[in-house]
């Protein structure tokens, strides 16, 4: 089951339409924790379908940036637009319903539920059936979608196992399935390769590159081999600020970047 998924199958996931303008636009985002600025004045725009990596050492503010984008934290200052709409003060679920998705650095799945139930829950979350009291029937459309997603992340054989019993790498794959539920238009991947074996990393690269073209994403990743192979642009962060932006090959060769990041023992 570890063969790359046919693009045709992947294209059925999510029929969200790419709007005009930018998919994601951040202007002057600042987040203070007390007197400490976790991120300051971050301005960034990502086109629909664009894939970008955010790199930086620990404490550079990458995950805080994600938390601001998804609404887990409200930014102290700044503006966030998602496909043209100002979502700065929206609660997280409103942003998710508009097609934003994220995965978590530390797996946060529902360990007591089976794989299929986890994915089903993710599909329900962005559907109109959230409050339905009717159990899913065998021909349920959401259950069908959940099955497709489980296939797409190569977990078909584990479908009915409890998530708590899965291997670590499989849990990471499931994280991705949850993030692709419904009609995603833009996904935030928070270190999806962390802790994966080399084979699993190859698998992850397959999954990411096989995503339909209209789904853009930002990926935080320490593994440059993974990060630079699945993106077309890179943003470097340092001490909560944007430090450099460019194409992967430029960033890789940039002496300053090498000094700060690649030379810092993270590569």
């Amino acid at each position: 089951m570890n063969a790359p998924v046919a693009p045709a199958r992947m294209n059925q996931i999510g029929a969200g339409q790419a709007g005009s303008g930018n998919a994601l636009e951040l202007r002057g985002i600042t987040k203070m924790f007390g007197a400490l600025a976790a991120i300051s004045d971050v301005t960034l725009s990502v086109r629909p379908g664009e894939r970008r990596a955010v790199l930086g050492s620990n404490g550079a503010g990458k995950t805080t940036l994600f938390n601001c984008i998804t609404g887990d934290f409200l930014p102290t200052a700044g503006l966030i637009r998602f496909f043209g709409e100002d979502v700065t003060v929206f609660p997280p679920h409103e942003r998710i319903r508009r097609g934003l998705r994220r995965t978590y650095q530390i797996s946060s799945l529902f360990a007591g539920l089976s794989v299929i139930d986890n994915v089903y829950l993710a599909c329900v979350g962005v559907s109109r059936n959230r409050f339905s009291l009717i159990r899913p029937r065998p021909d349920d459309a959401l259950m069908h979608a959940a099955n497709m997603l489980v296939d797409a992340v190569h977990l078909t054989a584990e479908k009915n196992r409890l998530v708590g019993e899965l291997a670590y790498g499989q849990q990471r794959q499931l994280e991705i399935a949850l993030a692709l539920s419904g009609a995603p238009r833009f996904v935030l991947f928070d270190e999806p390769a962390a802790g994966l074996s080399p084979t699993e990393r190859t698998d992850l690269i397959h999954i990411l590159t096989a995503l339909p073209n209209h789904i853009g994403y930002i990926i935080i990743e320490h593994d440059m081999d993974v990060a630079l192979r699945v993106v077309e642009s890179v943003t470097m962060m340092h001490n909560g600020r944007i430090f450099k932006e460019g194409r992967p090959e430029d960033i890789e060769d940039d002496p300053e970047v090498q000094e700060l990041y690649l030379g810092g023992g993270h590569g």
Partner: protein
Amino acid sequence: MSVADNLQRLTGPYEQRSWLQRIPAAWWAVAVILLFMPVVANDFWLFQVMGWTFILGMIGLSLMFLAGYGGMVSLLQMTVAGVAGYMVAILGPSGANVSLGLAWWVVIPAAFLIAAIFATISGALAVRTDGIYTIMITLAIAAAFFYFTRQNYSIFNGYSGFNLVLPPKLFGVNWRDPMAFYYLSLACATLCYGAVVYISRSPFGLALQGVRDNPRRMAALGFNVTAHRVAAYALASIFASTGGILLVWQNAQIAPGTIGISAAIDVLVVAVVGGLRRPLGPFIGALIYVLLQVFSADILGLFGFSADRFKLIIGIGFLAIVLFSPDGVLALWDRWRARVDARKAAETRGAP
């Protein structure tokens, strides 16, 4: 692998047998005992013991639904039941002259509706904070309503409450007749139990359990966590209201004492003693509670105490459960079963 194959896989372990076939034999036995109990049991057992068990079980079930699936330990459920019961007494006919005396087909839906509105508003206040605060806030709301009914004479008829609140003579049956009341409360309890079991696997029920385990993640999946919690309060009010209305009919009266603080605590005791994790728990807890209450004089007499010490027994029993088996007597049962199974397995392994 085709999509059809996938579906087969998914539904395989669930749906190969019809739902009737999947009910274990023990349940059939319980069903038969409950259905034919009136053949052997006298009126006292049917009306006082079993009727009260079902009522208390339903109110406890609404707490179990909120606590077990939603992670919200609410001390409000007796109050919600009381609101429904009070509405039946206020809107319908009773011995007090503040009652409006409306027809039952207005009164009962109105009682459910008003109790649901009350539960929704209170729930909305309670879910503003998390965790252990819930228990405090719901206790405070329950107390406020209790004191209010005691002070207010124009609507709630104050201290004396309402008497002579009788069920309507529907289909020519006197529903307070012990056998009729037994079957009525049994049917209601079965429906409520079935509803909770069914809903636990519905999108709403699954999501509620997700909210219990990881609210932040649920928000990141598109769920409005607050709305889900409030909706759970509204839904749980249906079970509590059913119990509350039956309670008024059984006692033929309702007064502030019915919904006092100790009654609210009793519901918690019943649900915790039975087990908060499974819908069956509250009914088991209710049966134990009612049996202790009814036979407290005999039990206490054995130890040389007077029957007044009933609350002491309840308190100590509750403490023992919370200290030694936090998941209730159902967990004790599970542990015992597991030990028996382990012993059997050891014997069969040892035999050849």
